[in-house]
């Protein structure tokens, strides 16, 4: 028994000391992919900073940020939370069947958003369509922790905006509800929808626009990753979470040119597949403007897409129905939608936003 006691003390003190030693010996990291932020570096010493206490504070953060095995510790932490029966922390829900789902907070700007959209719909020369995308929290309610009570649901928010925006509406709730058991609509570890989910949305969009949607057989469906751990997982690392698979619906790119602000490129950015942030594979993450021209289409139509990152995996479907598609991220594109519509002589505009971030998304401010 005495041996056990001694062993515990040796183990614990050794553990603390070793963590310190290994952290000190290991070379410092600049960036944490798990957290998507820069890590604190060794502060510069000055007497002034020492007296103010700033030096100590930075040193404190530095030592914490550069701790060895941070990822491992985070996994122990998440697993412990799960074992304690915790099903909500860090703004996510730990759900049944390994789902990690972002919370939906009560929206505050619904009326303002509807007004902004109405204003555009009334004044724009192009015909405007609005697609609001539910997120997993609204569709897979059966895996959510029991007893959750939302003051306002995503559907209620969307319905209000739909009926006040004055645009052609593409609502996805019914179709997602009927497809959710057969199709993986969302990633379990990320806040985005899957390409499969986006494909269904595309068919709904086509119905609303009077296009004939291309059947799945027209695409070469390729599994581009089987090791995707997304953003919701970053908030709740656990030991036993299986990775998500990511698919792309590829097609012949003959006659199609993709132009970014930085020059010509591809729809899909292979380099992201080896990084943590794999969803950026689609259209290269947050691009202020992407222009896609398709010589194979000649219907005189040009589409402007105003969107958040959800649309990044939807856009590759849309290019088959327009001569030109201009994709704007209004958080980074500063000229306003009206300008882009006039400049490109657009015939159609699609507003595509997910419900979870719509309320707080600074992109909405860029709609003018």
């Amino acid at each position, binding site marked *: 028994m005495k041996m056990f006691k001694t062993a515990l003390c040796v183990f614990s003190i050794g553990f603390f000391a070793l963590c310190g030693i290994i*952290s000190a010996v290991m070379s410092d990291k600049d960036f944490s992919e798990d957290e998507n932020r820069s890590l604190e570096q060794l502060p510069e010493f000055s007497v002034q900073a020492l007296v103010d206490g700033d030096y100590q504070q930075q040193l404190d953060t530095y030592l*914490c940020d550069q701790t060895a095995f941070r990822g491992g510790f985070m996994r122990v932490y998440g697993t412990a939370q799960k074992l304690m029966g915790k099903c909500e922390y860090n703004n996510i829900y730990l759900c049944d069947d390994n789902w990690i789902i972002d919370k939906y907070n009560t929206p505050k700007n619904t009326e303002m958003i509807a007004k902004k959209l109405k204003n555009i719909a009334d004044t724009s020369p192009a015909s405007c369509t609005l697609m609001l995308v539910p997120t997993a929290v609204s569709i897979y309610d059966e895996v959510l922790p029991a007893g959750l009570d939302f003051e306002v649901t995503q559907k209620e928010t969307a319905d209000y905006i739909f009926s006040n925006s004055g645009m052609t509406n593409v609502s996805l709730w019914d179709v997602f509800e009927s497809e959710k058991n057969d199709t993986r609509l969302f990633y379990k570890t990320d806040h985005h929808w899957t390409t499969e989910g986006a494909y269904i949305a595309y068919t709904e969009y086509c119905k609303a626009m009077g296009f004939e949607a291309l059947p799945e057989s027209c695409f070469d469906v390729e599994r581009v990753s089987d090791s995707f751990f997304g953003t919701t997982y970053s908030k709740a690392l656990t030991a036993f979470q299986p990775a998500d698979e990511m698919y792309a619906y590829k097609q012949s790119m003959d006659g199609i040119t993709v132009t970014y602000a930085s020059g010509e490129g591809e729809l899909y950015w292979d380099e992201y597949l080896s990084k943590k942030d794999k969803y950026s594979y689609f259209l290269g*993450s947050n691009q202020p403007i992407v222009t896609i021209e398709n010589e194979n289409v000649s219907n005189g139509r040009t589409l402007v897409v105003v969107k958040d990152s959800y649309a990044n995996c939807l856009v590759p479907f849309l290019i088959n129905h327009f001569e030109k598609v201009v994709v704007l991220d209004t958080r980074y594109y500063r000229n306003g939608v009206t300008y882009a519509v006039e400049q490109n002589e657009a015939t159609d505009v699609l507003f595509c936003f997910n419900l979870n971030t719509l309320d707080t998304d600074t992109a909405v401010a860029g709609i003018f």
Partner: protein
Amino acid sequence: MVFSGIPFLFYFLPCFLALYFVVPKKARNAVLLVFSLVFYAWGEPIYISLLLISSIVDYTNGRLIERFDDKVAVKRAFMCLSVIVNLGLMGVFKYSGLIVETTNSLLGTAISAPGVELPLGISFFTFQTMSYSIDVYRKDVKAEHNFLRYMTYVCMFPQLVAGPIVRYSDIATELDDRKVTPSQFQDGFIRFLMGLFKKVLIANQIGSLWDYVIALDERTAAMAWLGLVAFSFQIYFDFSGYSDMAVGMGKMLGFTYPENFNYPYICNSITDFWRRWHMSLSVWFRDYVYIPLGGNRKGKARQIVNIMIVWSLTGLWHGASWNFLLWGMYFGVILSLEKLVNVPKHLPKALQHVRAVFLVLIGWMIFAIEDLSVMKNYALELFGTNGLCNSDALFRLRNYLGIIIVALVISMPVYKKLREKLSAHKTALAVVSCAGYVTMAVLVVVTASMIVADSYNPFLYFRF
């Protein structure tokens, strides 16, 4: 620096222990002092001057009181000087903001507050140095002649910032000469771990529930009570965890610090609660305020007055805000009533306990909410002015049920009782102990992960 952080656990503590036990015995006080100053300077470099002033004043006072032992007036003057300097430091650095603010709002003046930040641990070290001078004056203890030793007493990091309030007389001999056997060291370290677990695994975890509840615009009764329960556990495990860590580290070094908590939530009256909660402070006020005022020796009426004085001061000691005074007076009134009518003894045991816990919970409400109008609302909500229960309250309960059950069990002497029961059965006791050690080893890793998680800030908003 805090005990439950990476810099302390991974760097400071291992370095300190290595150096402390490597140097010859004579140099150990110096090592302890240097590390204590680094510990303090980590957060409050300039306020080291306050520590120094307080130490020098009371060291000198002690010597002078001893020297003028036969001249009572002179001796008394030096003792008073100590009290004035220490209370003066507290007045300036802790209460000046409150005094100015209150004066302004009462008289309509616009005096600007001095804008000083509260120096870490000031409430503890001023009380310690003050008690030293008084004890020397009363001849309860001999004056310390070695300044290094005295400074070590004032500054030693295990109890510098959060108690317990260690009186010089408690550890006078140990400052001079102390022995630590490996078994004592281990017991001390295990005590430290227990405190660390209490702080990190329970207090920090359940604290987020209280943060959630108090941030709501309105609460149903169930939600309000859930919040109070969360706060009660948070403050107990936070504070007693810190005390455990201090007592444990003291033991590792060969010091015997006074105990500070004794399962306060199993109390059967408020009198009993205050014999179990923050004991080193209650004893301090008893010895230096209550008894000098006459205690219970001058009749019932005077005793009640004394109780009210002591508990008002106890309240204000906890923080420079009027709700703390209210909190102290609240307990003053209850304690007086318990003295006068002896209420609890007439009730069945279970009811005594329920009554005491109820009063303690209401006390925490007064303690936790500074804004009196918010407090009033909260009090009404406890009794259902915003409905009895809602589904969100049930969801929160479910989310925190695991931790609440653990907290409840640990706040009762279950493990202690189990060991006592098994004391006759050697093998059973051995099995329980081993299971305990193994569990603790696992918890060490989990605790480290919780501490790392505290510094883990996923910054994800801009990545869509």
